[in-house]
């Protein structure tokens, strides 16, 4: 019974919505930048044979996995061309990202952003990479969490309140556990890889096109630091589930992991990937760290006056 209570307390802690604010704002920015970054190539990437092949392969895994092909097929019955459908999908994604940023129609915007991004990620199956998975994971948790949060316009202007605020702690805990699993296995696999101990994998990652943002001539001057960088990456990732929970080591580990993602973004040009990882980390473990300690309220009786 005691174990059951402790498990319940761990899974359903009492929680404020500050982590949800970070997640909403961060993913709103992420979705908006994602849409803007692909604006000029959107139609090229998601039209034609590659999309149809990806969707055909996807249909083998399930008939209820959304894709842009659903909209294209529906619109074709109404004689609406594919280009128009793709443009509307892009516009929908951009608008839902902006709406999440300001907190208007939070629940609907989160569902729309998740759904439209998922459609694009699945239709562009051969073009997708890790960043798409993490966006899907983040948006999936965001749309299930008790929205709106206190800083959203829905709360402030429309006076809307979440229906199940008691689930705030649960969804944050799920996100925390999910990140621990991801980092632990990523770190463990790297330890076992042959090229992370001597830094050769760091070198290869940094000179491999299209991630070769830094000139290899500059990198080679720092070659003695490559093994250290490789071991540090493995240590940060595999140590994540062990050091992120304790209040004494959480700050250093969170800052370390965020710095690692920031460096990946700058040194490899993977800005959106870095942003989504930092957003997920800060939402999961950040809000308590940087909150200022409140002064305890003194409740002393006033001096009696006669």
């Amino acid at each position: 019974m005691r174990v059951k209570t402790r498990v319940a307390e761990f899974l359903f802690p009492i929680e404020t919505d500050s982590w949800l604010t970070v997640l909403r704002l961060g993913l709103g920015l992420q979705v908006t930048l994602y849409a803007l970054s692909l604006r000029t190539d959107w139609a090229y990437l998601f039209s034609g044979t590659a999309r149809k092949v990806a969707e055909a392969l996807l249909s083998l895994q399930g008939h209820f996995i959304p894709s842009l092909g659903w909209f294209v097929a529906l619109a074709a019955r109404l004689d609406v061309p594919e280009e128009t459908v793709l443009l509307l999908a892009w516009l929908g994604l951009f608008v839902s990202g902006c709406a999440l940023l300001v907190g208007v129609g939070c629940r609907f915007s989160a569902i729309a952003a998740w759904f439209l991004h998922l459609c694009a990620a699945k239709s562009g199956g051969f073009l997708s990479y890790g960043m798409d998975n993490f966006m899907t994971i983040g948006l999936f948790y965001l749309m299930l969490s008790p929205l709106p949060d206190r800083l959203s316009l829905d709360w402030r202007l429309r006076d809307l309140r979440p229906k199940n605020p008691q689930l705030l702690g649960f969804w944050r805990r799920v996100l925390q556990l999910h990140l621990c699993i991801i980092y632990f296995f990523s770190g463990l696999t790297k330890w076992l890889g042959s090229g992370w101990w001597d830094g050769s994998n760091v070198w290869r990652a940094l000179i491999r096109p299209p991630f070769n943002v830094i000139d290899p001539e500059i990198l080679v001057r720092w070659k003695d630091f490559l093994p250290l960088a490789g071991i540090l990456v493995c240590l940060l990732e595999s140590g994540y589930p062990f050091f992120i929970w304790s209040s004494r080591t959480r700050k250093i580990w969170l800052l370390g992991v965020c710095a690692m993602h920031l460096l990946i973004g700058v040194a490899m040009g993977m800005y959106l990937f870095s942003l989504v990882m930092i957003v997920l980390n800060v939402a999961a473990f950040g809000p308590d760290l940087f909150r200022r300690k409140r002064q305890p309220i003194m409740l002393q009786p006033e001096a009696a006056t006669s």
Partner: protein
Amino acid sequence: MAEGPTILPLSFKNFSHKAQELISIAPAEQLSPSNPVRESVDTYVQLAGIESGSGYFAPNVPSGYTLVFELHYKDGRVEYELPSVRSAAAELRMAGLLDNIGRTPYDELREILVKTLAQSIWRKHPELQSVRAILGSLTLPSVREFEQGKRESYEFLYAYDFSLQNASAKKNDH
């Protein structure tokens, strides 16, 4: 772990293969694709974004692939072009697509994907007589090799010839 080089002894590779098979049973992968349980599980993992683990270049950073188009004009001119996109974000995705083209074990799928890219080249240059798509794997130099003057190199893998008269490609292996 079962595929790439690791610090573990070779005998561990057999264990990794067995573990891989065992893990594949867990998400109902042994069931028929039309089985409702398998379809439900597959759909859920796709909707939640957890259908594949992200290893962040683990256990090792793989080699990349490149695709070069040899454009043959009607007047006999020959030019070379790489598949191009406008934005840096799309460039990352294009690199992923080339990796998928290079790694897929299915020849037909590889041909379809190369053909898709060739079609966009054709739309850009309608005066072309034929297009040859050459797929190569990228070999990266180590730090020491780089210091000795060695740079990235490409190894020929496949070539596909496309022409307007002949819709299906003629494939040349290495």
